[in-house]
């Protein structure tokens, strides 16, 4: 279950990033500045998430808490269409220039969800590490799963999903997927001692 969660979260990060470029284009174009803003904001979110996730993981980690960590971006993505246009329109009107406008818009729209998705990786690592003897193996596997998920998320979104459904519907779908993952996680009691 946890492996699946890590995979899906990895996929959603990158899928959301690809869709983010579609969200920004009407107000900020699709220049290299837009892509630069988008990528750096996602990476900033992930790195903050990794840091925070590591600290949180040391305070009584449980799958119940993990479920709450995943529900948060789930709700943000599910309600994304309700606030995204208003925010981008507002920043468009403020017009901070070709670099700052998309950077600010990316930060407001994408930073918080990517922080939460970043937390998932170290947190699950802590949940899954049963002994220091095999911790390297566990962490390596989680990294690989998360990044493999990201590859699949990127490809499936840019090659197929964009031609199947609208950007907003896809982002809401990702929100639903995250919530659907989080709910069973809440009632499970996944920790190393049980799995062993």
């Amino acid at each position, binding site marked *: 279950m946890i492996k699946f969660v890590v995979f899906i979260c990895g996929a959603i990060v990158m899928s959301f990033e690809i869709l983010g470029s*579609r969200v920004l*284009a*009407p*107000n*900020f*174009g*699709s*220049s*290299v500045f837009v892509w630069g803003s988008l990528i750096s904001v996602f990476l900033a979110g992930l790195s903050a998430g990794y840091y925070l996730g590591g600290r949180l993981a040391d305070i009584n980690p449980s799958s119940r808490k993990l479920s709450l960590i995943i529900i948060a971006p789930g709700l943000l993505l599910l309600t994304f269409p309700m606030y995204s246009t208003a925010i981008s329109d507002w920043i*468009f009107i403020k*017009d901070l220039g070709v670099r700052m406008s998309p950077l600010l818009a990316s930060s407001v729209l994408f930073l918080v969800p990517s922080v939460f998705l970043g937390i998932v990786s170290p947190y699950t690592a802590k949940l899954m590490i049963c002994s220091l003897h095999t911790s390297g193996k566990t962490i390596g596997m989680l990294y690989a799963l998360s990044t493999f998920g990201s590859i699949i998320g990127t490809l499936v979104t840019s*090659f197929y999903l*964009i*031609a199947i*459904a*609208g*950007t*907003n*519907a896809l982002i809401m779908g990702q929100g639903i997927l995250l919530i659907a993952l989080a709910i069973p996680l809440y009632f499970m009691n996944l920790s190393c001692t049980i799995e062993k």
Partner: protein
Amino acid sequence: MLRIFCLLVLCLTLFPLQGFALEPSEKLLFEKNSLYQYISVIEDTVKKERYVRNQKREYTQGGIYLDAPDKLRFEFTQLGFVSLAFLDKDPKDVLFVGLGAGAMPKYFTARYPEAIVDIAEIDSDMVAVAQKYFYFKENEKMKVHVDDGRLFVKRTKKKYDWIILDAYQNDYIPFHLTTLEFLKEVKSRLKDNGIVVTNITSPFRNKFFDSMVMTYKKAFPHLYVFKGKKSANFIFVATASSIIKDKDSVEARARKIQSDRKFDIDLEDFASRYELSEVYEWKGAKVLTDDFAPVNLYQHQKSKAQ
């Protein structure tokens, strides 16, 4: 073994060359990876022509005859001028979205020196290329604004008689310049009798073409299509006014403009290719929106019409 090795080396050295190979008659005058694209300026010393190209040789963005730099080299740029026949008066305020080699604005201002022309071009390197290699010059009536076309249209307070959308590279079309929302923004910048003209390339009838017809049709009361004879280009002319223009009146107007403004292209012949968009409308095609616009995928997919 050695032979295989030699063959391999040969393949490796030949392969990359093939992509960028020039004809023996061609020489490369300029190339640059700008912020937005790869730009190359190539001169054909036999044909005495000069082009601006992106990666692929079959996709030429624009060009000129060296002996006659004021003539229009490409059919789609010539055909675009047929749209002037849909205007009842001479255009006073004109907007070009996309500069390319600058052939269309140059040709236009030579015939309508009194018009005020704005040009929105995202790539400042393209502006420099148009100036240096294609005799394009700004003046007090013709200004280039280095900005994304959509952002320029959204920000400008001005209204135009004639808007030319020519920001579609053949191999890459920015999706945010194809959507219903964008076309509505364009329409809001048109005067009451204003028109918008665009060039859609569709070598085989693809889904993108079908969707563009339906999207224009949704944004504007009327859409007219002019098909290229020598090329796979379709000129779309959409009007802000709900009054329909019949073929006879368009032809008559084209004839008048032709002689009044001394066009050296056959506008009347172009006008005779008049078709109403009904011919191309297919209800199964999806309207492109900011939310849903798989432009680059649709370009490679065959139309399902008929």
